[in-house]
């Protein structure tokens, strides 16, 4: 459904050729690479082109007789359909809150794990575990084992009778995703922390800086790029999240995000054209985010080079 345009960061080319090198010689060097390039384009871009084409068609699988060209109707429907509009809003809300909360929690955990203590490796492995759980299994675990009002762990521990998912559907979905994505953020930030130049920290300590000041003026600026990277990579993945919404709420109670709505358009409305149009909208959104992400990555790479 969504293919990402992942252009590698520009690499500085080989040293400039002397002018005398003929065009033919340059092509002779490039030609062997062409098949690989064409193959890559075919594999990565063709499915998206197909989606793009279908998004301009009027194509409902149960009404085969009126298949045809729809111009921009599908895109108009995406913009005007209140369901789709609200799902765009839900997607933004869901993605932003999951990314923010899991970043803050991930930062806290990464700072704790940055200290040396016995059993650190074990703790780190255990903290990463939620990220390795299959998304749909994690969603099922949250729906039944934790949230269930009858036999769920939350009500069992608190002695309450709260129907968590009905009371706060979006929060319920966000919480399950935060649990899954905090380890991911933690890993990225931990990598950032471990690449910190410790001599500066020592010097600051000798100059009498407090722990908080070291964090505020040394650690945080150093981590900025890693925070950006985590936020952007996380956003790209969480925008596409389907399992949690599908499993926990079945898209009810205003929790339907874009991927879920697209699924519904495709499987329940059998409207391939409109589902593709919505998919294209998601891709465009993802590409915008991805562009920032790649910039962040390339600035990291640049730093590595200049160091």
């Amino acid at each position: 459904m969504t293919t990402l345009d992942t252009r590698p960061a520009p690499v500085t080319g080989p040293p400039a050729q002397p002018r005398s090198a003929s065009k033919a010689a340059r092509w002779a060097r490039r030609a062997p690479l062409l098949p690989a390039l064409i193959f890559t384009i075919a594999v990565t871009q063709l499915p998206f082109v197909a989606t793009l084409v279908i998004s301009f068609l009027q194509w409902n699988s149960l009404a085969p007789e009126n298949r045809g060209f729809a111009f921009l109707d599908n895109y108009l429907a995406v913009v005007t359909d209140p369901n789709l509009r609200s799902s765009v809003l839900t997607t933004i809300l869901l993605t932003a809150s999951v990314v923010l909360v899991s970043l803050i929690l991930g930062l806290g955990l990464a700072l704790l794990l940055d200290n040396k203590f016995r059993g650190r490796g074990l703790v780190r492995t255990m903290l990463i575990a939620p990220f390795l759980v299959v998304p749909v299994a994690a969603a099922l675990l949250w729906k039944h084992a934790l949230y269930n009002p009858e036999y769920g762990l939350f009500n069992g521990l608190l002695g309450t009778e709260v129907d968590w998912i009905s009371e706060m559907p979006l929060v319920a979905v966000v919480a399950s995703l935060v649990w899954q994505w905090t380890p991911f953020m933690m890993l990225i930030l931990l990598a950032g922390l471990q690449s910190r130049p410790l001599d500066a920290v020592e010097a600051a300590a000798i100059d009498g800086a407090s722990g908080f000041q070291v964090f505020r003026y040394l650690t945080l600026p150093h981590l900025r790029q890693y925070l950006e990277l985590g936020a952007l990579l996380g956003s790209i993945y969480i925008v596409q999240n389907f399992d949690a919404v599908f499993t926990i709420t079945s898209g009810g109670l205003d929790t339907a995000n874009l991927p879920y709505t697209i699924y519904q358009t495709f499987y329940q409305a059998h409207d391939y054209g409109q589902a593709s149009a919505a998919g294209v909208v998601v891709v465009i959104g993802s590409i915008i985010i991805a562009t920032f992400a790649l910039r962040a990555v390339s600035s990291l790479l640049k730093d590595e080079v200049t160091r």
Partner: protein
Amino acid sequence: MRSPTRRRLAALAVCSTLLAAGCAGAGGIGDPDDPNSINVLMVNNPQMLDIQRLTAEHFSKRTGVKVNFTVLPENDVRDKISQDFTSQAGQYDIATLSNYEVPIYAKNKWLAPLDGFIAADPGFDQQDVLEPIRQSLTAADGKVYAQPFYGESSFLMYRKDILAAKNLTMPDRPTWQQVAEIASTVDGAEPGMKGICLRGQPGWGQLMAPLTTVVNTFGGTWFTQDWQAKLDSPEFTEATKFYVDLVRNHGEAGAPQAGFAECLNNMTQGKVAMWYDATSAAGLLEAQDSPVRGKLGFAQAPVVRTKSSGWLYTWAFAVQQASNKQQAAWKFLSWASGKDYETVAGQQLGWSKVPDGKRASTYQRPEYLKLGGSYAGATREAIATADPRNPGVQPRPAYGIQFVGIPEFTNLGTQVSQEISSAIAGRESVDEALRAAQGLADKVAKKYRN
């Protein structure tokens, strides 16, 4: 006749719009030139997996027809069937369709009519197939387009012991008002026990199925004969309010996420005293290892203004029009939907595994009745009294009891059910929910009015 490459391109294009799931499970395709090798596309329900296991031994050996099965989850199977049948690619000779799709597919000329085969195969005994099921697989042109594998209706399951402790008796044909009263009395009969379980999970096949049967019997309808949407009519509103109030006051905890599986769980664990749902649940509640086995009574679906209100659903085998192996395909249908397979399944796997709810003769088998005696009679009656052509108090523009037999219903029903699920959660009033739903339904009705 379009060229196969174009078809393949179309299929490829469709697949590429999907996540990986769309193109999964394309295995099990036999030799297209062998007249005795057929391809069957099935939904992955337990009964289908049973027949997949038994086919080679009990069908292919005898007839020489090799059967290649492709089994997929419900959403994927619906999608794959519609791809293959829409383009009449003929890759699959047989597919499992429900009584919701069969008339729609038949109208589009995607299915082969079976009347000729039925006439030439007296051993199949078409008259033995229960009347409403037969009707629901007959298209508008009067021809039969599919043969049922198993069928179900809906009825009320209740705990006899709990009702007896409260000195209550459940009539064989209760009204909804009686059921609501009993639900309020038995609510809390045991610690943590609620009065009744009713589905609240969004989905055209989840919440919308039982609710639509309630709407029918309260005198409401989705559409009038001349395609006026009626979701904000007094009857529809009264029915919805009744359902929502009942489930909010005396229904299961976590109702907005409770579907068939959750209610089954609640009933098995003794968290609810009653459950209105599919007849196929009875066999699961009465299974050997069920804690409520033997404590259950079964009553017909509650009514208000109609004689009966149970729904009708069946998974059936249909043959693709473009298949050039229709003779071999019918051989399989005749065996799978026939009496012979029920005997094979009963003897090989146990009589609880028999695909029931489709033939009158099933309910005369002593081995079957020994196991399912408590609910067999009620099930048969529920299916026999279902009338998909006339389920309410007014004429309808489309067939169907718990659904409206139009292609748009899967989406419309799901969207409406999301509104009503919100009302069950208390996030909006029933009136607000139905106002939004009426707007959605009116959009669909408009298409049919012109």
